[in-house]
């Protein structure tokens, strides 16, 4: 039994690790696979490809767009959801089932499906809206909802928001003061979790941006790899590591507060 378990864990570890290793080798070693032999394993490593990408103006534009989308999506998520989640929890718990249902809905309308509906409605009525890359922001907020709302909701429950609310209320604080000065400082963990999940979504989303012909980091990556396979691979690895880093920071911040980054559940 124990041997089987160890074998299982090792195999799974290899499955997760080897593709990344292969990716790093392809990205940073300028020896084609055909010519690769055990003796040549240490030859020709360099990170010049990646450095060159950083100087590419198109890459810089796409990165700036993606970073702006990320920040805007996080801000919009928190502005829309934080007060609402807090008030539902402390003042209108009967709305909780409804909120859970609504925030799950974006799940059944994936990007590649919604893009068709968006093209059908917005393109005819408000064509200027889709012209700007910032039009992606509301949709990214929407797809992050199942995760971001759950993260905030879990945070509110874990701090016992209603008790805090009632205590502050008795002492004469207004609802606004309670949210800003009592709940938010206690919810940093949940806020980080919601932000991190939104950020990861923005950095990875491809279908919607590509089909609306927007240049973001993922769409640039797909295009770039076709002309520059090696540098494209290096860039993809860098983006992967960046995403991992962002999520890793979120997990650490949560663990410090005794929480876990959980997946959205039904």
């Amino acid at each position, binding site marked *: 039994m124990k041997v089987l378990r160890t074998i299982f864990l090792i195999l*799974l570890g290899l499955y*997760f690790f080897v*593709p990344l290793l*292969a*990716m790093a080798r392809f990205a940073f070693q300028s020896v084609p696979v055909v010519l690769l032999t055990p003796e040549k394993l240490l030859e020709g490593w360099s990170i010049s490809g990646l450095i060159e990408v950083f100087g590419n103006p198109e890459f810089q534009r796409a990165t700036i767009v993606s970073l702006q989308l990320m920040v805007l999506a996080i801000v919009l998520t928190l502005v*829309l959801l934080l007060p609402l989640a807090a008030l539902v929890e402390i003042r*209108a718990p009967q709305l909780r089932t409804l909120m859970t249902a609504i925030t799950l809905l974006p799940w059944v309308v994936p990007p590649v499906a919604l893009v068709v509906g968006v093209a059908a409605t917005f393109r005819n009525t408000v064509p200027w809206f889709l012209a700007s890359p910032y039009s992606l922001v509301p949709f990214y907020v929407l797809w992050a909802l199942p995760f971001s709302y759950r993260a905030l909701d879990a945070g509110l429950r874990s701090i016992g928001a209603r008790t805090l609310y009632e205590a502050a209320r008795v002492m004469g604080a207004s609802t606004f003061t309670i949210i800003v000065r009592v709940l938010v400082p206690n919810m940093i963990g949940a806020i980080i979790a919601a932000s991190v999940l939104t950020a990861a979504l923005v950095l990875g989303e491809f279908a919607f941006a590509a*089909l609306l012909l927007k240049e973001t980091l993922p769409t640039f990556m797909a295009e770039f790899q076709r002309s520059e396979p090696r540098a494209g691979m290096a860039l993809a690895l860098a983006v992967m590591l960046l995403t*991992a880093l962002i999520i890793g920071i979120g997990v650490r911040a949560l663990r410090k507060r005794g929480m876990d980054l959980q997946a959205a559940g*039904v």
Partner: protein
Amino acid sequence: MRRRFDTATVIVAVPFLAFVGLFLFLPVIGLAIKAFTPGGSFGFSAMQRAIEGSYRTAFINSLALAATSAILGGLLGLLLALSLRSLQRPKWLRSTVDSWSAVAAQLGGIPLAFAFIAAIGTQGVITKVLGLAGFDLPDSGFSLSEFWGLVLVYLYFQIPLMFLVMMPAVGGLKNTWAEAASIMGASPGRYWRSVALPLLVPSFLGGLLLLFVNSFAAYATAYVLNPGAQIVPLQIRFLLQGNVITGEQDLAYAIVLWTISLLLASLLLIAILQRRTAKWAAT
């Protein structure tokens, strides 16, 4: 009875509902209307054509891909959670798997497809190593752009996702319950059947749905591995980009409406199953 909500809740709920209405409901309703009015007048021809011929094949392929990767990923993810539960010794292992799962569950898309191409594509390192060991991978019928290739890549985010879903439930199984069961004379099999399983099933079902929707909708990975694959997301792209042909747009609306209905139906099905099993666990 009339429910009254206080002003503050209404003030923050209205922008949110307007937001969801504008960016989710409006486009979906818009495309639903267009799907049922092909060529400008009411009719079912587009909805009909969307599940015929090559489009039917795409739906079947997508369903098979989603179901296979959900079930395999679900079982492996559950197994991972269970095998870590009783593992005490290397202390770092548990927290590493925890963090790594949170990361890998989000690592779909373009970079993931590249990683697998570098590993087991026709020019991949593993392909080369296997070739040196005498096993010709491309010759064996395996290809990253085919069904099992896509399943193998999808598992990369499916397994960690299921692990994240199952961890709270698996962690909730108390060792004392197994001891209590064995003292009362239950075999380990009986303990799993009557105690552990009923407690795990609701989370497992929810996880399966998450995985199913996740892989049915996955676009970027499949797009890189095989842009011409006969699966629904790529068919939608094909129709959307080739919309110069009149009438093809109606078809895209219909395919999307079928997709949304399908995913919504699976969401409802799982919710019902979960409620049932929750009762079963309570009895």
